[in-house]
Every structure is written in C-alpha cells, then in structure tokens.
C-alpha cells in the first residue's frame, strides 16, 4: 500500500508535483501514466525518500520510507537501470544491496535466476546491454522479496521478448498479492499490463480509475448505426434523448445512448438494422485527450 496525501514538490518556481493524492493497493498492477515531465519520476523519488516533499506526505505501509526498519524487504524499486557502478559485476552489485539490509547471499542467486542473468552475473555491469541493465535493475528491486514494487519505465530499451517478459512478471507479481506500480508514458503499454491507472499531467492528478472504468467513462459512448431507414431511426433516437450526427461513412453516429437501447428503438419502430457498432475510443486516444493540456512541450500549430 502506497498512500500520497497532497504531495507537492517545487523546484524554485517550477512545480513538478502539485497536490497529488492517491492510494495504490495490493494485488493489482497500477499504471502510473503521464507525458514526459509530468512528475512521475519525482513522485517515485519522494516515495523512496530520495527527494523531500515541499508539501504533503507519502507513506508506504503506513510509514515514511526512511522509517522502514529493513526498507528493501518492503519496497523494491527500479528508478534508473543505468544507476550502477560500471566497474562492478552484476552479482556484486546485488550483493551490495542484499548486505545493506542483512539479507543472505543466496537471495542474490535466486534473483539472478529470476531475471535470467545467472550466466552473465560475473560480467561488469558496465558491459551490459540496455536490456540486460533493465533486468539487473529489476533483479535489484526483487532482492528483498518486497510486498511493494515500483518500476520506472521498465520496458525502455528491451527487445520484444524482454517486453513480454516484463509484462508477464508484473502480472505475476500482482497475482502473488503484491502492490505493483509501473510508470510509463506509453498508454498502449499500460493497456496491456495495468489493472488500474493513475494519470498525471504537469504534476496534477488527471485520473485515478480502473482501466475499464477509465475507458467506459471517457470514450463518450458513441455508437455507429446503419439501417434501412436512417431518417426515421434518427427521429426515434432524438425523441428518446440521444444525439445523432450523420456518420462520415454513411449511417448515424449516436452519442448518449447505449447500443442496446438503439436496437430496442429500431425493433419497436420496425426498422431493419444492418450495422450496430459501439465505438470505443482506444486508451491511447483517451490518454491524448486527457493530457493534451498538460504536455510540457507541445508542438505548436504549423502556420
């Protein structure tokens, strides 16, 4: 459980995180989503006690991170996979982490096996590819076998096989009852991994909802309908409170009415329906729509 209350971080005149409140619960993958520069990493750094909030607070399992007795057994984090000493072997990097919280060396071998780096563990971390570095970062997060895991852009630099592996890992960690927070600026990635989404833009909370709820609420429930008598059907729909506009490819674009209701109206009026398609916006479109006002550097109109 991670809980933020009115979390705020200002750097001089810039507000990186602005009055953010959320609660991240166990047993599901929570996607932390926002355009680059939205404040995702700053928020994660405050969760880990690396940065001090200007205002508000964030707790893990009800306590400040710095008050945890053996922090890595409660929270494991991958913030930046490149944050290792390049001259140190992967195994020694993990030994450093395990020792710091009094964990046995056997745990190092276990996590090396989990991430598939066992055979290359004695190689210098500086000689690792980006993908291997990400795996090492994930291994580091898992050393303490924590109940809370945070990953900042974990699929960056991974090949397709690696991406599938990370997704599966996130899902199985959540299935084991852990709290999993994964940040990304890619909606499509989150659509495949997350159960719940926290969307921020310019440091402010934009949405905090289940993936499905998110879609249902924001896709404006538009339905494409084509019938033998579009004109009469349009009258029926507007009469029942729906809004109708002619669809680009012929037929009607209906908003404010579920497809089932449209079908019932057509049946009652004896109109043959040829096509009845709920138009669900993709998560990507919803995301773009939500964050369009909060992208830090948006491309201006071309004159």
């Amino acid at each position, binding site marked *: 459980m991670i809980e933020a209350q009115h979390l705020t971080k200002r750097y001089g005149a810039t507000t990186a995180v602005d009055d953010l409140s959320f609660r991240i619960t166990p047993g599901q993958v929570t996607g932390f989503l926002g355009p680059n520069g939205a404040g995702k990493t700053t928020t994660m*750094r405050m969760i*880990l*006690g*690396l*940065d*001090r909030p200007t205002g508000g607070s964030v707790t893990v*399992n009800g306590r400040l*991170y*710095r008050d*945890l*007795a*053996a*922090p*890595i*057994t*409660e929270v494991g*984090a991958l*913030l*930046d996979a*490149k*944050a*290792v*000493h*390049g*001259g*140190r*072997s992967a195994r*020694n990097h993990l*030994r*450093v*982490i395990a*020792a*710091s*919280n*009094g*964990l046995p060396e056997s745990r190092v071998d*276990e*996590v090396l*096996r*989990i991430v*598939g780096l066992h055979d290359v563990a004695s190689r210098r971390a500086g000689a690792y590819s980006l993908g291997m570095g990400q795996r090492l970062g994930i291994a*580091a997060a*898992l050393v*303490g*076998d*924590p*109940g809370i895991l945070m990953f900042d852009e974990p699929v960056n630099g991974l090949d397709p*096989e*690696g991406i*599938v*592996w990370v997704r*599966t*890992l996130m899902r*199985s*960690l959540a299935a*084991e*009852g*852990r709290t999993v927070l994964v940040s990304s600026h890619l909606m499509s990635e989150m659509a495949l991994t997350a159960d719940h989404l926290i969307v921020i833009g310019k440091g402010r909370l934009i949405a905090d909802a289940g993936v499905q709820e998110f879609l249902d609420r924001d896709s404006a429930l538009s339905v494409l309908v084509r019938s033998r008598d579009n004109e009469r059907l349009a009258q029926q729909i507007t009469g029942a409170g729906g809004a109708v506009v002619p669809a680009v490819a012929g037929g009607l674009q209906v908003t404010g009415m579920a497809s089932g209701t449209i079908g019932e109206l057509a049946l009652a009026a004896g109109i043959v329906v040829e096509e009845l398609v709920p138009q669900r916006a993709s998560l990507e479109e919803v995301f773009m729509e939500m964050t369009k006002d909060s992208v830090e550097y948006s491309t201006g109109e071309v004159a």
Partner: protein
Amino acid sequence: MSTITDPVPVSPGQRRGTAPARPATFGDAVRSEWIKLTSVRSTWITLLVALVLGVGFGTLISYLSGSHHATGGFGHHGIWDPTSVSFRAIVIAQLAIAVLGVLVVTSEYGTGMIRVSLAVTPRRTRFLLSKALVYTAVALVVGEVMAFAAFLAGQAVIGLNAPSTTLGAPDVLRAVIGAGLYLAVIGLLASAIGALVRNTAAGISAIVALLFVLPGVVQALPSSWANPITEFWPTQAGSQVFAVVRGAHTLAAWSGFGVLVAFTILVLAVADVTLRRRDA
C-alpha cells in the same frame, strides 16, 4: 529461451515481504560498503599506486637524501631527521589515498548509484558513517603498511651514507604509527569533502588545494602571517605526527594531529547535515 519468458516465482514457497526479516543494522551498512569498496578494480589499483609511491619513491628519496647528507648538503639546515626523510614520499602517496577517498563518495553520484544506496539505506547518517568507517579502516591498514615499509627500507638505505635511526629511538615509533594514522585521517577528510561537493573533479580539486596549493600560497605571505597559518593549517599541523625533530613554528605531534582530526570531524559533520537536507 524458456528461462527468460517463463517467469520464475519471485519468492518460491516463502514469505512475501510484508514484514522485515529483521531490522537492518549499522553493521549491515558496513558490510555493504565493504563489498562496494572491494568489488571494483580501481580500489586495488589506487591502493597499489599509493604503496608504490610511498615505499618505492620514499626509499629512493631516502637514498638520495642520505648521499646528499654525506656530502654535507644538509649541514646548513641544522636539522637531520632520518624518520621524516623516509616519509617524504608520503606527501605524494597521500594524494592517491585522498583521490580514492573522494571517489568512494563521488563515484556514487557520478554513476547514479547514490539513488540505489540511499534507497537501500535511507538513514543517511548511517550511510555516510559506514562508508567513512570502511574507507578509513582500509586507509589505516594501507597507511600503516606503507609507514613501516617506508621507514624500514628508508633507514636501511639512509644508513649506507648517513646517520639512520631505529624504531627504538625516542619518538620514532610514535612517528611511524603516526604516519599511518595521518594517512587514514587524510582518507577520511577526502571522503567527507567528496560527500560535501558530490562531484569528483570538485572534490579532488578541493583536497589538492587543501594539501598542496593553499599551503604554497601561504608561504608567499609575510612570515608574520605565514607562520601562524602554517602552524595551524590542518594538513600541515597533522603532518607533525610523523616528524621526530620538531621544527620552528610547528605544533607538537599530537596537538598538530588533533587539529587535523578536529577539522576532519567538522567537515564530516557539515557533510552529514547537507546530505540529510539535500535531495539525492
């Protein structure tokens, strides 16, 4: 490769970290810092360089000084301190100890490792002190080895041409042990400076300025200014602990060393306060 795509359970048949196994201790932090220090090759290379400089170069200087003394070259100084002569290269070797001292802290900032370190050990004073303790202990061992080796080899070659001394002579054992202690404190001071400036280039510049540049600048001042400043300049004062014959305008061995230790503790305390205040 099935080992990669099939996820292995993260905690096969055991607890899922809801409660800590046991609280992390200062000793855990020390063990972690020990692994950090000993698992990078640059540590061993730098310490070896320090020993070669301190002992090898020291023996050469001792031999040359002994010959020079034999030809009457030291007559006009009026001071012949064979112990000090055998430690002359420590002035150079201390740079290697100091550079590594800066690096053990600043390399964490340079690589980003600091964010991992402070996440696994969020008690920042514990982090800083465990790191300082490990490096000071290593610098002490290397320093004592260097001091005894440089002294014994130095006296052997000085004895070829000039009066040498032995560990049994008055104040000599104190000076030899003191040379190792001095190197350990210089290592600690360099680490504290590293923690304060968080940048390798700035840290090395600061320690070089403290050890070499500023004392040189002070010498250019009128002696009424230069003498008291030199007397109490932390690194100059500290070096009295490995002199047997006390020069003019210098503190006594342990008083001088005390000045260096007090200054080092002050820098470490300031480094601790800033480390706890700043974002990592």
